[in-house]
């Protein structure tokens, strides 16, 4: 706890502050504005937006795509520089995994996988930024410029379930779209109703297949959220409880997290590709 104002906070307040979002939304009385306390944010319900995680998410995605495009426009086939090689290695990695797992014809899947992988990787990597650097500076600015008491400012978008579920539900929509496109509406529903045990066991089939289908987006989104949220929470606990001894603990947990960050991005990409590949398979 390195920044001003921390002395007056309890550990619990410190952690709650770091787990809150900078929320802009509609107050119960109908006017729109920033929520100044977690209670105000809770009262806004669905009609609110997390300015911090949403902003970081868009900023990271845009930075990644614009940077890749900038490199791509300056790239040469005969004389690649080190940065181009780096980007190409990511490109070929994703392209190779997609070629292995997705055997159908759809030119959208590989760019989708690249976007998902690099974007999620960048959002996860924000977890390795020390917890008080950006959040602390933002809290100071919030306090002195905008009159917040403790302005929350979350910088890891994938610790926000809205972000991860936004991705996984979009992918779920694509799964349903491509299933119906390639199997027909009848084929898609038939797979749910008649699949494991034939038509005489229809209710039982539905009981198995519908949760299986729904589990895909939920597990996809929550797995990413859970891993990153747990990682973030442990960083906060270390920062909040260990005082001066936190540095080695931060280091150890960050090293461990170096494995989690790319692994979760990779798992998210691979599951996306595998689910979409299954959606393209015509009915048996």
């Amino acid at each position, binding site marked *: 706890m390195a920044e001003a104002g921390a002395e007056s906070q309890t550990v619990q307040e410190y952690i709650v502050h770091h787990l809150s979002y900078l929320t802009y939304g509609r107050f119960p009385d109908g006017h729109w504005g920033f929520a100044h306390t977690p209670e105000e944010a809770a009262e806004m319900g669905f009609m609110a937006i997390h300015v911090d995680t*949403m902003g970081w998410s868009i900023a990271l995605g845009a930075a990644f795509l614009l940077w890749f495009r900038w490199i791509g426009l300056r790239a040469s086939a005969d004389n690649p520089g080190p940065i181009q090689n780096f980007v190409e290695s990511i490109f070929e990695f994703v392209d190779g995994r997609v070629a292995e797992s997705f055997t159908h014809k759809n030119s959208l899947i590989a760019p989708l996988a690249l976007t998902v992988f690099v974007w999620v990787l960048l959002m996860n990597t924000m977890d390795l930024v020390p917890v008080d650097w950006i959040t602390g500076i933002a809290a100071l600015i919030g306090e002195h410029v905008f009159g917040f008491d403790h302005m929350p400012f979350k910088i890891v978008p994938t610790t926000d379930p*809205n972000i991860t579920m936004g991705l996984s539900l979009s992918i779920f929509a694509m799964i349903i779209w491509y299933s119906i496109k390639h199997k027909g509406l009848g084929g898609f529903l038939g797979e749910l109703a008649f699949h494991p045990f034939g038509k005489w066991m229809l209710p039982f089939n539905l009981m198995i297949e519908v949760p299986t289908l729904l589990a895909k987006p939920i597990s996809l989104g929550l797995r990413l959220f859970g891993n990153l949220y747990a990682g973030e929470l442990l960083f906060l606990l270390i920062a909040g409880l260990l005082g001066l001894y936190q540095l080695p603990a931060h280091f150890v947990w960050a090293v461990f997290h170096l494995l989690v960050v790319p692994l979760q991005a990779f798992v998210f990409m691979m599951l996306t590709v595998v689910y979409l590949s299954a959606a393209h398979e015509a009915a048996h």
Partner: protein
Amino acid sequence: MDINLTIIGQSIAFAIFVWFCHRYVWPLFANILDERKRTIADGLEAAAQAELKLESANRESEQQLDEAKTSAAGIIDQANRRATQIIDEAKQQAQVEAERVMTAAQAEIEQEANRAREELRAQVSVIAIAGAEKILGREVDQAANEEMLSQLAGEL
């Protein structure tokens, strides 16, 4: 879990990013990698073809060398034969010439001898008459002895 509008914002951002990546990022790198693959394949093919060409060129040059050797040997052979022939011809001609010169010389010698003989014959009669005149002390009638004298000259 506070689910709110952020989930919709994230979905929209996701759709836009995927569209952007599909339209403006992915093709750039796909093209570059394709181009590089093509360049490498072309290079390898060109190398293979160059090797083939080199082989055929080597074969051709060997063949030409062989041909040149054969024709050079032929030319040398011919030249040798021609030289021998020329020498033979020259020898023959020289011999013929020598014979001719010798024959001509002999003929001339013979002619010369004949002429000398004729001269001698002519003079023999004069000497004989002069001798007879001395012996007889008088003039011999040439006309009267003409027949006897020419018979004498003819016997010489």
